[in-house]
């Protein structure tokens, strides 16, 4: 197997696992927010941040995937990648793939609870955002780990 294929698997994992996490997370928050908005449509603005927050992991995954794609030259002429380089790129994609998947799902649950809190006490809308952001920390750490691992891979 060529190293290029392994690198492509890494790029795909970063994008699809973090993307799945975000999709599930936003699925939770979107449903909770729709429930609230069906009774209180004026709360759209207050809920928007909580609904969108679990979506960031999908972007982190996509950015890492894009870096890998650019690094191996998939958008132009593909470079000759050894199996070891391919494995390095795959390893670099894993932190955001797994941290993104799990943190987005749990962030979705935290934010859905926050939406319920905001529905009941609109004046408290920012507090659940802070709790949601705490979960975000670990997605950011996963992203940074993937990023630093990748920029140090010499091709």
């Amino acid at each position, binding site marked *: 197997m060529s190293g290029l294929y392994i690198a492509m698997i890494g790029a795909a994992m970063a994008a699809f696992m973090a993307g799945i996490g975000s999709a599930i997370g936003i699925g939770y928050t979107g449903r909770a927010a729709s*429930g*609230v908005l069906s009774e209180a449509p004026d709360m759209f603005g207050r809920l928007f941040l909580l609904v969108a927050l679990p979506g960031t992991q999908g972007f982190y995954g996509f950015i890492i995937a894009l870096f890998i794609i650019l690094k191996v030259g998939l958008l132009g002429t593909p470079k000759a990648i050894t199996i070891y380089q391919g494995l390095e790129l795959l390893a670099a994609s894993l932190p955001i793939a797994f941290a993104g998947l799990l943190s987005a799902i749990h962030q979705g649950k935290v934010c*859905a*609870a926050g939406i319920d809190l905001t529905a*009941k006490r609109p004046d408290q809308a920012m507090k659940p955002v802070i709790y949601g952001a705490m979960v975000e920390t670990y997605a950011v750490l996963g992203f940074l780990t993937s990023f630093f691992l990748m920029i140090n891979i010499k091709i």
Partner: protein
Amino acid sequence: MAIDFLKYPPFGKEDARYTYAVGRIRVLEKDLIPRPFFDRLAEASEVSDYLKFLQETPYSKYLSDVRDEDSFERMLIAERREALKTFDDLCVDEPLKFKARARFDFHNIKVFLKSKIEEKDFEFALSEDGSVDLDTLKQVFKDEKYSWLPEHLFKAVEAGISAYYENKSYRDLSTSVDREMYRFLTTPVTENDFFAIYHSLESDLINIRTYLRLKSLEALDILKNHLLDTGYLDTSILLSEEPEGLVDRLSYTPYGKIYEEGYKYFKEKDSLRLYEKLMKSYLNGFLKETRKIDMGIEPIIAYLYFKFEEIRALRITFIGVFYRVKPEEIKESLTVVV
């Protein structure tokens, strides 16, 4: 079943199907009338003041049609129907919808049985909020084709008829139908059946109340026939203990304090008022626990029951004000804790 919990049984398995519903319920919960508002209603000097206060609540939409007791009752029925409809809209587990309406179905069964036995028409006492529509029920009772009913109602009819003909007692009929209702409500029909847990707790507290009630009537010999077999508490404790001894026996259960304080008041004043208040407060506390749930059916059931409680409290306060009962007495009868 046995009591293996300190205050309330565990509940709340995460169920993401209810994420939308819980969001909607959290907004609706804001409109529930809080206890201080009921105190204000109880203090209304006359019905016109009472209705003026009610203008500040979601009930204002009905008030143009409210003039007397009957129209007030119609308003309460309309609001109850709306709460049940909201439950039907939000509940995705069909069997739970039957449970939400069970009390009305079983009530109708009692009315039809009494009507059949006395050969009189009690149609005015029927409720249209059951899951079986009244025309079907009428036909079933007319033709005596009880097996056409859903199984739980069929069992209740059979139990009610045989209990009545044993002693020719409506009380026995009512107890038997209630027993079947609690059996239905406490049999889990889904993996996450909050109704079953709630009504098992309620069964225990009803059994203790029955014990005290029969004690005051010096009729403990018939206790066995009146106990529900659907609670967590072993009913043999109630059958074997004297009231004083029961304080000790129940002190190791979540009902210890409720019984101790309720029994003390009962001994002094020969009244179950405090016990009933503590019982309701314990059960409402259990419903309030559902506020910790963000994905599950529990908050939706709790909302429905709080709504029933609110409607009951409105009835008590309105009748109190209508008949000029002292505000303190009206407040004393209220158990709302929202």
